[in-house]
């Protein structure tokens, strides 16, 4: 029988209070009087009464809680009980911990399908209808992964409480391997590519995302072999050849670029930069591995990687984003012989959270999508739990809003790693599986979660998007594994090679590592399953999380497995690496996969793509400049893309590991900075500076300049805080849309060209990158009209620099009354796609353009000024232009300023104060200095467009005069501060 333990709170429970506040936001919220929360543990293992009591005690804190065993926890008064638990097979982290507690307490092991499952009952007191109670349930849960049961008090009493439910997976299925007949019509073949292999009952397994070229190549290959493929082989090819894994678009011939834009623009840029740098080249390992690696000092290297996890986050924002952040952590653990994650970064591209118009995946208002607010809350929470639980500081991130992220949000996650350069006498970044090594998988078991993730994200989202692609990360399982590997097994030299299991699961990780030695032999039956009934193809490609794959010499296997056991980490030998030239998989005594590695990895046909790029002309705003810009500035401060998101900074641990030098918030006024400084090697004063830049709206005008601006901003941000230009690396993350359309590809090609031009101009190499090419949503609006929503072509540039002495870092807040405020860099009429024009409802055409040669001189001068200790504050001018940057400095310092535009360095004809204030021209920084250092400071900027534009006040008054000396802004820092924090108040 199943047992149930219910734990309730004896003291006022904060969770219940917060839930009450959330419920009150419903239309009928005022009728809700009180809320009480009870945690429920259910187990399908039998225990004696005495054992059960011990268990209950171990799950309850007697100071604040009480429990009930196999009966309902007594609640004084309620009208509805709403229980939320997980769907069968969904990761239940608390259940997992509870099971470990019980096993440890009673010195026992759960067998087979025995487990602990958690759920939570919310008791609501209030005059509500049953439908309203159900709405409350829906507001707390996601039906895709959770189950909701609502009972009225009457029903509850009649039933004697809630139902005892064991959400165990029951597949009722005899695992089988299918031969897939490819000698079929083109139409049938295409169906396999689009909808997947047909099951016996006529349903399809979900997209393989293989197009006709690929399918014909596969067809021909198997004709040559004189047989049909098994489903395992076909699924495996689909994973390995997916856009997600092979980056087929970046590799394809594009118009006249035969080698493809990745090699031609991105990789070539890095190669040229490295050659030009000569012995000053600081790259260690670029593009080859799960992360990129650069020199930190003579003993250490740092690694960097940024990923996206967009499609899953649209369906289950929390699960998608937590899986994203713990996934990119594994790209660090899987770099070289394993680096330690030391910095996390995030970036969320979202739709306006106030937008409540529903979207549907299916026709006739079916398959409702989550609202932008639910998506926003969920993705923020996912990185919170994933990052915080893993003990990795998250000092840097951004929010970026555009309505076109409503169908698919973009969830960027990045991790910087740290690794000694030398491990047991060999370079740490080199690894090689050897024939005879055992294939070992460590971490979690395999279930149906995460099937077709790789192929799913290589397509637009529509009504056929599989729910099995959704997973929930388990950061503690990963943390245990990460510590055991990075802090112990690595330094003991227990493995020859390591990589993470990400997209495509072990089908990709093992086959990828097999390239190092020339083959592998996998006994699939040795892969541990969460529950019986999985088909071999599912076991092979499942992306169940928290797993790493290693190649371990036979004489070290026992030591490795023993170490893992002592660290509470599961690990299994599942095969052997060899030099057969093949990837062979056996199950139940049959060979179910037998593919040449050369075909698996390099058999995919080379694609040729053609592109077009038609530039549109947009309307320019036709209004006069307002005589007073005070309200305009206040409105700008509250814009989604410019407002404070300190509510995120405060919930993401940014000080763990004791390495934080400049965190996410600057100054007394806690303004979100654009760069952070960390010191991952505690006994060194060297710092790692990280930043990011994104400006996807510029793509509406020109993607070449969009890319140029992103690079310029990402570099300038580093410079503004004290990072060096000469030890600065970049990463590119392209999140495109409709990449089967020539116009979109034309935009892509131009953006990549921009990446080449500006990374080489600055001598800042790309060390890693990633792309996600189909961020489109196809569905229906609230009136049932079909809609397609494509994200704006989005490029995130992440920057990382190694700073000689972090004690020279400069923050953006002004610090002392009387200090002089300077601008360096020219302001042009470049308001196209700016925040100001969008506020006015226009796009315009004058997009900011980057003059790298000129900017380089400015950045060098700023670098010198910081090294000489001449700057009291410094800020990079970004979205929102000078006006917003100045206001941010004042808010951060909690001091006022008097600013005059009279001497502002200007290029071309710009006189309107609103244009001067809100143009987003690149290459500009605002600095404040001690007046005593004026001469020394100015001397560094001879022949550069530098001007003193104001002074810091003693009080809070903030004034600004135009070219004629007329006051156009007259306010104070408190009001600016209030507006800056208005938009996300209460988030």
């Amino acid at each position, binding site marked *: 029988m199943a047992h149930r333990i219910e734990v309730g709170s004896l*003291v006022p*429970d*904060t*969770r219940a*209070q*917060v839930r009450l506040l959330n419920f009150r936001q419903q239309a009928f919220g005022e009728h809700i009087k009180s809320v009480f929360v009870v945690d429920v543990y259910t187990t399908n293992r039998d225990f004696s009464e005495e054992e059960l009591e011990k268990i209950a005690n171990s*799950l309850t*804190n*007697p*100071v*604040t*809680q009480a429990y009930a065993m196999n009966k309902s926890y007594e609640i004084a008064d309620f009208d509805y009980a709403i229980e939320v638990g997980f769907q069968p097979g969904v990761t239940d*982290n*608390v259940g997992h*911990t*509870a099971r*470990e*507690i019980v096993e*440890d*307490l009673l010195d026992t092991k759960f067998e087979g399908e025995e487990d602990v499952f958690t759920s939570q009952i919310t008791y609501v007191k209030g005059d509500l209808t049953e439908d309203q109670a159900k709405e409350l349930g829906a507001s707390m849960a996601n039906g895709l992964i959770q189950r909701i049961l609502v009972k009225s008090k009457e029903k509850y009493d009649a039933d004697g409480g809630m139902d005892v439910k064991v959400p165990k997976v029951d597949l009722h299925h005899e695992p089988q391997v299918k031969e897939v007949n490819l000698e079929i019509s083109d139409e049938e073949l295409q169906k396999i590519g689009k909808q997947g292999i047909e099951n016996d009952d006529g349903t399809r397994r979900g997209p393989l995302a293989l197009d006709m070229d690929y399918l014909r190549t596969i067809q021909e290959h198997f004709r040559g072999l004189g047989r049909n493929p098994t489903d395992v082989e076909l699924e495996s090819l689909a994973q390995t050849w997916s856009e997600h894994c092979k980056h087929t678009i970046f590799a394809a011939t594009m118009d006249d670029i035969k080698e493809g834009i990745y090699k031609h623009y991105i990789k070539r840029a890095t190669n040229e930069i490295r050659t030009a740098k000569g012995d000053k080249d600081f790259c260690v390992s670029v593009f080859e591995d799960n992360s990129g690696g650069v020199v930190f000092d003579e003993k250490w290297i740092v690694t960097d990687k940024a990923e996206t996890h967009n499609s899953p986050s649209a369906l289950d924002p929390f699960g998608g984003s937590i899986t994203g952040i713990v996934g990119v952590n594994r790209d660090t653990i899987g770099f070289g012989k394993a680096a330690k994650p030391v910095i996390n970064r995030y970036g969320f591209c979202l739709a306006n959270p106030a937008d409540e118009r529903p979207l549907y995946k299916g026709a006739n208002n079916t398959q409702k999508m989550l609202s932008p607010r639910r998506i926003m809350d969920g993705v923020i929470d996912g990185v*919170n739990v994933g990052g*915080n*639980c*893993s*003990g990795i500081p998250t000092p840097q991130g951004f929010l970026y809003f555009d309505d076109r992220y409503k169908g698919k949000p973009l969830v960027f996650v990045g991790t910087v790693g740290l690794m000694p350069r030398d491990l047991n006498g060999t370079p740490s970044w080199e690894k090689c599986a050897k024939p005879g090594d055992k294939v070992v998988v460590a971490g979690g078991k395999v279930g149906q979660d995460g099937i077709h993730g790789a192929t799913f994200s290589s397509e637009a989202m529509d009504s056929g998007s599989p729910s099995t692609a959704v997973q929930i990360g388990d950061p*503690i399982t990963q*943390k*245990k594994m990460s510590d055991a590997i990075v802090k112990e097994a690595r330094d003991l030299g227990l493995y020859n090679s390591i990589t993470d299991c990400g997209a495509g699961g072990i089908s990709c990780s093992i086959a990828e590592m097999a390239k190092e030695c020339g083959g592998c032999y996998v006994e699939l039956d040795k892969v541990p399953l969460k529950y019986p009934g999985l088909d071999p193809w599912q076991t092979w490609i499942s992306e169940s999380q928290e797993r790493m794959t290693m190649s371990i010499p036979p004489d070290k296997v026992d030591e490795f497995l023993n170490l893992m056991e*002592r*660290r*509470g980490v599961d690990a299994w030998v599942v095969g052997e690496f060899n030099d057969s030239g093949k990837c062979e998989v056996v199950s139940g005594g049959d060979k179910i996969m037998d593919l040449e590695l050369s075909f698996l990895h390099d058999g995919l046909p080379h694609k040729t793509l053609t592109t077009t790029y038609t530039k549109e002309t947009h309307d320019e705003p036709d209004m006069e400049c307002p005589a007073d810009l005070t309200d305009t500035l206040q409105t700008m401060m509250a814009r989604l893309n410019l407002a404070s998101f300190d509510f995120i900074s*405060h*919930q*993401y*641990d*940014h*000080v*763990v*590991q*004791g*390495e*934080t*030098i*400049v*965190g996410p*918030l600057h*100054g*007394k006024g806690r303004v979100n900075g654009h760069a952070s400084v960390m*010191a991952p090697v*505690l006994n060194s004063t060297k710092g790692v500076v990280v930043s990011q830049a994104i400006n996807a709206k510029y793509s509406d005008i020109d993607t070449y300049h969009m890319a140029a601006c992103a690079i310029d901003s990402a570099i300038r941000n580093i410079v503004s805080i004290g990072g060096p230009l000469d030890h600065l690396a970049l990463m590119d993350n392209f999140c495109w849309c409709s990449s089967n359309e020539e116009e979109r590809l034309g935009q892509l090609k131009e953006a990549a060209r921009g990446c080449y031009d500006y990374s080489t101009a600055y001598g800042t190499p790309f060390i890693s990158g990633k792309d996600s090419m189909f961020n489109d949503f196809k569905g229906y609006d609230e009136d049932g009209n079909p809609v397609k929503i494509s994200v704006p072509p989005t490029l995130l540039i992440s920057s990382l620099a190694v700073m000689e002495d*972090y*004690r020279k*870092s*400069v*923050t953006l*807040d002004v*610090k*002392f009354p009387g200090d002089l405020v300077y601008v360096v860099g020219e302001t042009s009429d470049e308001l196209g796609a700016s925040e100001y024009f969008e506020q006015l409802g226009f796009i315009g055409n004058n997009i900011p353009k980057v003059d790298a040669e000129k900017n380089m001189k400015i950045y060098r001068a700023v670098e010198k000024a910081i090294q000489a200790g001449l700057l*009291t504050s410094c800020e990079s001018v970004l979205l929102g232009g000078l006006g917003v940057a100045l206001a941010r400095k004042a808010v951060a310092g909690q001091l006022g300023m008097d600013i005059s535009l009279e001497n502002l360095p200007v290029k071309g004809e710009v006189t309107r104060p609103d244009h001067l204030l809100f143009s987003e021209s690149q290459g500009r920084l605002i600095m404040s200095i*001690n007046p005593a250092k004026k001469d020394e400071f100015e001397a560094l900027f001879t022949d550069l467009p530098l001007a003193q534009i104001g002074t810091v006040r003693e009080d809070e008054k903030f004034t600004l005069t135009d070219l004629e000396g007329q006051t156009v802004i007259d306010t104070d820092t408190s009001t600016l501060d209030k507006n800056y924090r208005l938009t996300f108040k209460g988030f």
Partner: protein
Amino acid sequence: MSKPKVLVMAGYGINCEEETSYVFEKAGADTEIIHVNDLIDGRSSMKDFQIMAFPGGFSYGDDTGSGNAYANKVRNHLWEQVHDFVQQDKLVIGICNGCQIMANLGLVPGYEFGKREVALMHNKTARYECRWIDMKVTSEKCVWTKGIDVLRCPVSHGEGNFYAEPDVIAKLNEGDQVAFRYVKPDGSLAGGEFPHNPNGAVEDMAAICDPSGRIMAVMPHPERNWTFYNQDNWTLIKEKAEREGVALPEEGQGMKIFQNGVSYFG
């Protein structure tokens, strides 16, 4: 003076063991980071150490209540060793998750060894809070806080809301066992006011110790302010010091705690 040996506990999601070890080393101790399973297996023993530190982290993901599962593990397997350790003239410190573990183990307030009498409930904001706070020493007897007045360092937790029955609170106060309380920037008690008191802790309690003053459980993270350049406002202080011709400290305010621990054995 002989260097005391510090046992820094690790495993199951504790994640501040490296910096905790680092600050103790910096303060002059010898340290060893030891996985709890290695103590259980007998590969290491608590008796070889003078100081025991439960670092911060997310043991077992805070599931079933922060610190609960890890405390259960220690209780199930290491109870005698812990008992022997605290009976001797040795020191114990628990920071953040370590503080939660110690509360669950009943090492503080320590009226009856192993009895849970205080709890760290969910923050009043019901959200993880990572922010800088000031806390003031309010105990004379606590070994760890000697020579400190106000200490600035970050909190970073989801469950830091000290709670106990009124009689326990009274005993803590009478016994001079409240090591730190949250204060406002002017040094006055936070009075429960957010964000100065970041979690709603009763009577602004940030740290408590056992009746002997040797065992301290502290929610904020002094080890994360080990260098002056960790402190959130260091760029302002540095600039001010330079203009006033005042020398800058190199050390962070949190170091004093660990130095106190080490010098206890001096």
